Structure formats: structure tokens, C-alpha cells
């Protein structure tokens, strides 16, 4: 079986978001970067599927040169090799991203065979566009189920589970298929030190797709106004309990 996982490098913003002076980006001077939790679950699932069924897993990202770090992280979690689509720094909108990924999948499949399954995150952690996986599926003419919290291979297809109010909805789709997943699909493991070292030597193929015209064009970012207050300190340590219960009573919950 052949499986592809598409991931995005995003900053770990911590307690407060600070923007660059031109309000085009988050100021990441003091921040680390990560793969979004949804996509980490995609990586974990892809690695498990290949372990169980044999075959090859590939990770793909469209991102700045530094996104190689996230590709290596994915390989440390069990992915065999990586494709890096260099975005040359700037962010791409959902349509342009989907087009670049679609073309890369076509080229990769022409060389090495069809991917039975392609994983995306349900939405990227930063831009939250909710569309790239769906657009790629449409372009490739493949069935797509979104927001999965459960997946199991059944014969020549997959059984997909989505969390909905009151339970889970089930879909069954044949290979080749595209799925978008959410955190909670599985519990990703931590990479071992030997796996991290091995990942440094695993292959990364790079391509530089042409950036299309942006049709959802970012003008600027704005940090929403916070509640703009400091918490009222009810007390220190267990002695505060009495005041806490008073407040709970005022709110009407105790």
C-alpha cells in the first residue's frame, strides 16, 4: 500500500500573538515551529498503516525552506521519505496550495504508482481554510471524507468515522481515496533518538512550483481585542476556598 501525508509548518504561538510591523505575519523571531496536531495524527496513522500492511509512506509539505524541519520530524515518526514544495517564503491561498499539491501528486504517482490513501489535516492550524484536501480530491476525481476521528482499512477501501452530535457517522469509500483528519484520531507516539538520527539521513526531494495568482488575498492580520482585564485574585492557597464558593454561588452553579 502507498500512503501520502500532507502537512504544514506553523508557529507555536504560546500565550499571546504578536504581529510583524506590517501586520502581514506573526512575529516568529522568538517562536518554535511545529506540525499541526491534526496532521500529526495523519502521520501517525500513515506510519501505522504501512507497518501493518507493508508499502511506502511519503510526507509532503508546501512551505518555506525551513519546513524541512517538519519533514524530518515526520520521518522520525516513521514516514519513509519526503517531498518538499518550496513556497519561497510567502503564504499561498487554498486554491494555489491545492493546485501545487495536485500537480506534485500527479508527478509522484507517474513515477512511483498511485497513492491508495492521501491524508490531510481537516484544516490548517494557522490559516484555517478548510479546503485544501477537498480541492485536491476534486481535482484528482477521488472520493474524500473529512474530519475523521476513526479509520480502518476494509478490503480495497476504508471505513471512516466522523464525530457528530450524539455519536459517530460512518462512511465507506474505495481506494484511491483522500481523507482529512482531526486530532483524536490516534495518540501520536514520541520519536526515539535513533529514529530522529535516521530521519536526518532520509531523502527529501525538492521542487519549486510556480505561485499562482492569489484569489483569497490577505490584506493584513489583526489581533482581536482581548477581554482587556486582569483576573480578580480571590486569594492564595486553600484559604481562598470560601471566597471561591461565594463566587460560584453568585454565578448560580453551587
Amino acid at each position, binding site marked *: 500500500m502507498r500512503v501520502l501525508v500532507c502537512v504544514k509548518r506553523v508557529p507555536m*504561538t504560546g*500565550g*499571546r*500573538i504578536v504581529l510583524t510591523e506590517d501586520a502581514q505575519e506573526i512575529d516568529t523571531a522568538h517562536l518554535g515551529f511545529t506540525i499541526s*496536531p491534526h496532521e500529526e495524527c495523519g502521520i501517525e496513522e500513515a506510519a501505522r498503516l504501512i507497518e501493518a500492511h507493508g508499502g511506502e509512506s511519503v510526507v509532503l509539505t508546501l512551505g518555506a525552506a525551513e519546513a524541512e524541519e517538519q519533514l524530518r520530524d515526520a520521518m522520525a515518526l516513521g514516514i519513509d521519505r519526503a517531498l518538499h514544495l518550496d513556497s519561497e517564503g510567502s503564504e499561498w491561498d*487554498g*486554491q494555489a496550495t491545492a493546485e501545487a499539491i495536485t500537480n506534485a501528486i500527479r508527478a509522484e504517482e507517474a513515477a512511483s504508482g498511485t497513492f491508495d490513501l492521501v491524508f490531510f489535516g481537516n*484544516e490548517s*492550524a*494557522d*490559516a*484555517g*481554510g*478548510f*479546503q485544501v484536501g477537498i*480541492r485536491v*480530491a*476534486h*481535482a484528482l476525481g477521488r*472520493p*474524500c*471524507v473529512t*474530519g475523521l476521528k476513526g479509520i480502518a482499512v476494509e478490503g480495497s477501501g476504508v471505513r471512516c*468515522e466522523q464525530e457528530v452530535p*450524539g455519536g*459517530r*457517522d*460512518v*462512511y465507506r*469509500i*474505495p481506494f484511491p481515496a483522500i481523507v482529512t483528519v482531526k*486530532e*483524536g484520531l490516534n*495518540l501520536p507516539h514520541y520519536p526515539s533518538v535513533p529514529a530522529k538520527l535516521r530521519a536526518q539521513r532520509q531523502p527529501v526531494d525538492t521542487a519549486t512550483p510556480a505561485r499562482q495568482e492569489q*484569489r*483569497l488575498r*490577505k*490584506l*493584513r*492580520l*489583526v*489581533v*482581536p481585542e482581548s*477581554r482587556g482585564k486582569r*483576573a*480578580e*485574585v*480571590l*486569594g492564595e*492557597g*486553600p*484559604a481562598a*476556598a470560601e471566597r*471561591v*464558593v461565594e463566587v*460560584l454561588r453568585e*454565578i*448560580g*452553579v*453551587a
Partner: protein
Amino acid sequence: MRALVVIERLADGVDELSLQALAFGRGLAGGPDVHALAVGEGGADLAPLLGAHGVSEVHVAEHEAFVSYAPPAVARAVVDLVERLSPGLVLAAGSDRGNEVLARAAAMVELPFAANCVDATTGDPLRVTRQRWGGSLLEEAELAGAPALLTVAPHVVAAAPVDGAEATVDTFTPTLSPDELAVRVVEHVRAEAAGVSLSDANVVVSGGRGTGSAEGFAVLEELAELLRGAVGCSRAVTMAGWRPHTDQVGQTGTKIAPDIYIACGISGATQHMAGCKGAKKILAINVDPEASIMASADYAVIGDLREVVPAVSAEIRKARGT
């Protein structure tokens, strides 16, 4: 301008988020030319309700595909209407399904799509303000092409009934390809009811890395039970395997809006706060008076949760004489 709003149906009516999207769409259209799409049998029964929310015409898509949720089939119904009605705007709720259906429709008509908008201004191009990072950051952007496809972020506008006439009803059958019939819900697995659910609870007692272990949640469970609330947690906790992901509050967990959120040993990362900013009140219990959460909490207790939380439970029992 003409607006088309995709409605999500409940067993007995219309989802609240769809009514919010209708209010948003009506405002943006700037006139009464508001159409709604409801798929499946009985859609016509919604005409009085939708009329009361400003819809002039309800389009009911009928097809055997609609006996269960079939996302590509719904998207095809949207595209059929776009071709027939030429709306300037196509909207849906910023829900899982709303975002999915509009993204699929956008792919079919090769247009951009802006998810989770909180504001929009008509013009050429249309300007939107939309949520990033689960609402922790906003983006102002231009959306090229017509119609403009967008979803409305939950709870940024209220549903707003108007004095309107009942909507007229148009029934149609979309032409669906075999591919569009292939992806559909084939089974529903009911969740076992297990006490108060996180998303509906009035009180949520939540623990972060500061709880120290899975066992560290015993004191939180005790307090939650006394307050008939639910237990939540941060991602640091789910990643450590101390609690299941179904308990996680945040951008990639559950979004909640309880009367009070009691955050114990949680630092207040933006991605965590994205899940609990709908809470009416937030009480932070933290050893660190400088923790980020202090900037969004209403109340704080500075101290070790392992001492403070049991003391609060004891105080409640004392007051109740139990």
C-alpha cells in the same frame, strides 16, 4: 444583491448556526433577495420558519441521495442553484458540514472560498474579515470572483427574525453523477450516554500539565461531580495520555461555552483559550500569578491546585452540610 444560504436541517427544524448565517447573509445582501437551499424530503415544511428569518424563496433539493448526509451531492445541489439563480453571494454556517459543502462547491466551480468570516463588505472584490487560529487571530482579505463563497463563523451574529411573509417553495432534483453519490453516511453509531457532556456542561473543571498525572485528576473529578459539571483538560494532558482527547478543550479539541470554566494548572496558550473563550466566567487556579491565563480569566486563585481544589470541594460540602 442576491444571496443563497445553505441550510443545515435538524430533525425538527433548522440549526441555529444556519439562522445566524441567514442573518449575516441578509445584512450583506442589503435587500430581500435571499434564497435558501434545504436538501431532502420535508424541506418545504421549513418555509414558514425560513420566511420568518428573511428568506424569500426556499429551494428544496429532492433526491434519494439525501436520505443521509452526502456531501458531494449537497455541493452539486448548491452548484445547480448557482447556475440557475446567479447569486452574488453563497453562504453557509462555519460548521463542519457548512465548511465542507462550500469547499466542495468552490472546488466544482473553481472559485476561492473564505471560511469562518466574522465580517464582510460588498464591493469588487468583496472584502472579508475571517478567523485564523480558531479565532485567536483575524485576517482581512479580498475574495475574487463571483459568486463570493463564504461561511459565517459561529456566534458572531445572532439569528434575527424579521416581519416577513412566508417563503415561496421551489422543488428541484439535482443531476448527480455516480461519483457524487459515492460518498455518504452509511451508518450512525450512537455514543453511550456518560453523564454531562463537555460541550453542554454549565460547569467545566479542567486540568492542565499542573495536575501532574492521570491520578491528579481525581480532585478535579470530585469538584466537577459536586457542581454537576464535566471534566476537561489541555492538550499537554492528552499528549501525556492522562485523559482521552474527547476531554480536550481548545482549537483542536472541543469548543465550550459554560457558565464557568475552572482552569486548574493551565497556562492559557492561545490554542487552549480558543476553546473556552465562550465561557461566561473563567476561574484560573495556578501557582504562577504571571501565567498568560490571568489576562483572560475573571477570577484567580494563586496556589497549588492539589491543595486549592480539595479545599473548594470541602467548602461546598460544608456549606451543604454533607
